């Protein structure tokens, strides 16, 4: 029972991370209709920036969090300007390849800037590393921080979309971009906002995770694929779906690792997503899109 609870807890924590990446993906997709393949690299790059700020420059944690989120936001806006805006009207293939290109540039940049030192950077723990017991469940405080942080971000964003004007404008743009323009919504600003926000979420995820894991330039892609899988599980257009998807991926991964074999952990989300896509090509929580001709 202890093992199960530990595995689930651990799965939920990584799941929370995947959920945040998925959230970023869904935010961008909801507003623009495309998947930003650079999302994982936003995560990685912001993580490195956070390392630089906190470890190298001694900036305190909360401020690092804020600054990293700002950097992330900036990266997102830049990506919108460079890789999305100019080709917004073209086909899926081109858009995806453009964001893949950006992803690679960021990865290379990170390697050039920080890779000179050890390829793996470690972040000092923020909270104590001693596990504590909550009821029957064993947890590490940082895990709780990650969870709390994730919950906070999800709550903030749901509120943002439901309650603020900007959020509602994003929804409108997502539903019908042309109508949104007619109503006077500056859709290009919305796109930039969406990219920036998505990236900021990834940055936040990175700073939350950094104390728990090692940072290295290639980390972005692995997280991206899992985040993408989580977003698809949740239906690609649904914020709560993304969170649910992330948790599912995290828990499946953890359980597979614990009960089957540790090496299976890496690959289990991929197998799951392949199976899900075969059985339900439109994801678990979405409704069937009718082909309109």
């Amino acid at each position, binding site marked *: 029972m202890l093992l199960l609870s530990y595995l689930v807890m651990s799965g939920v924590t990584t799941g929370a991370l995947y959920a945040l990446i998925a959230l970023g993906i869904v935010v961008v997709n909801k507003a623009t209709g495309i998947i930003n393949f650079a999302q994982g690299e936003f995560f990685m790059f912001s993580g490195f920036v956070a390392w630089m700020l906190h470890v190298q420059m001694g900036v305190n944690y909360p401020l690092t969090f804020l600054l990293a989120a700002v950097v992330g936001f900036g990266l997102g806006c830049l990506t919108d300007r460079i890789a999305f805006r100019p080709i917004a009207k073209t086909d899926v293939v081109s858009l995806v390849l453009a964001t893949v290109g950006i992803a690679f540039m960021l990865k290379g940049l990170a390697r050039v800037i920080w890779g000179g030192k050890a390829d793996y950077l470690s972040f000092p723990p923020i909270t104590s590393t001693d596990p504590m017991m909550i009821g029957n469940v064993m947890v590490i405080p940082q895990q709780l921080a990650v969870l709390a942080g994730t919950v906070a971000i999800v709550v903030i964003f749901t509120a943002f979309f439901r309650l603020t004007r900007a959020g509602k404008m994003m929804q409108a743009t997502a539903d019908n971009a042309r109508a949104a323009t007619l109503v006077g919504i500056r859709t290009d600003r919305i796109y930039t906002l969406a990219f920036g926000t998505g990236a900021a979420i990834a940055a936040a995820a990175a700073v939350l995770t950094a104390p728990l894991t090692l940072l290295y330039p290639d980390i972005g892609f692995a997280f991206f694929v899992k985040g993408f899988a989580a977003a698809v599980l949740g239906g690609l257009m649904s914020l709560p779906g993304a969170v649910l998807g992330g948790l599912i991926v995290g828990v499946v991964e953890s359980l597979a690792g614990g009960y089957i074999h540790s090496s299976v952990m890496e690959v289990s989300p991929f197998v799951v997503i392949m199976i899900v896509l075969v059985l339900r090509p439109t994801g678990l929580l979405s*409704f*069937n899109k*009718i082909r309109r*001709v």
Partner: protein
Amino acid sequence: MSATLLSVRDVHITFGGVRVLEGIDLDASRGEIRGLIGPNGAGKTTLLNIICGIHRPQKGDVLLDGISIVGRKPSEIARLGLGRTFQASQMFGGMTVLENLIIGLHRRTSSGLLSAGLKLKRHRREEAEMEEAARRALAFVGMSELAERPATALSFGQQRVVEIARTLIGDPMIVLLDEPAVGLSANRLTELDGLLRRIRDQKGVTLILIEHAIRLVMDICDQVTVLSSGRRIADGTPLAIRNDRGVIEAYLGKDLRARHQAS
């Protein structure tokens, strides 16, 4: 060989809880031009989608030349002899006009991976035949000079005509046309009128045509079916339809019908 080529029987379809079509019956005879009209949202395009296999009705059947085609893949139904054009332009942008026509012959030819890759004799012969047939078809619609232009370089009206030619070149028994006249100028409309007649007269193809241009429908259709809110409210000759109360009501609403009758 029965006179009825296409038979739609008691078709019902629901999308996400909304009843889009209920109890639709329609029979089209060989060589007939049948109009399908009705206010927006009546379900006309959905009906065409069902006939050509894009949607599957919850209830009912569709028979093409006596064979039930419900549940078959659209490409299969196309190969059985049904053609279709769409409201939005569906020209293949990566090809020239001529190539767009040649692809219309796809279902009548058969060279495959190896035959094409190895440039075997059969493949070469087929290619030559297809090119000739495509040029003839282009001439039939009077656009020979556009053969080598990229498909995207054509005007909207020209694209529509080429798409019709592309559907016809495969020698279908029946063609479904979804608003072929939309966006056409008066001149082009007259041309389309003539083209559709020639298609029916010279090739004996049955046409089912969704149209809002009532003048066109009255002019060339032999029979007209009227849909409104998912139901069939009238079926008959253009003249009969014009005077049908239900139809007038559907288009104009009850008050206006009274005024129309009074006038």
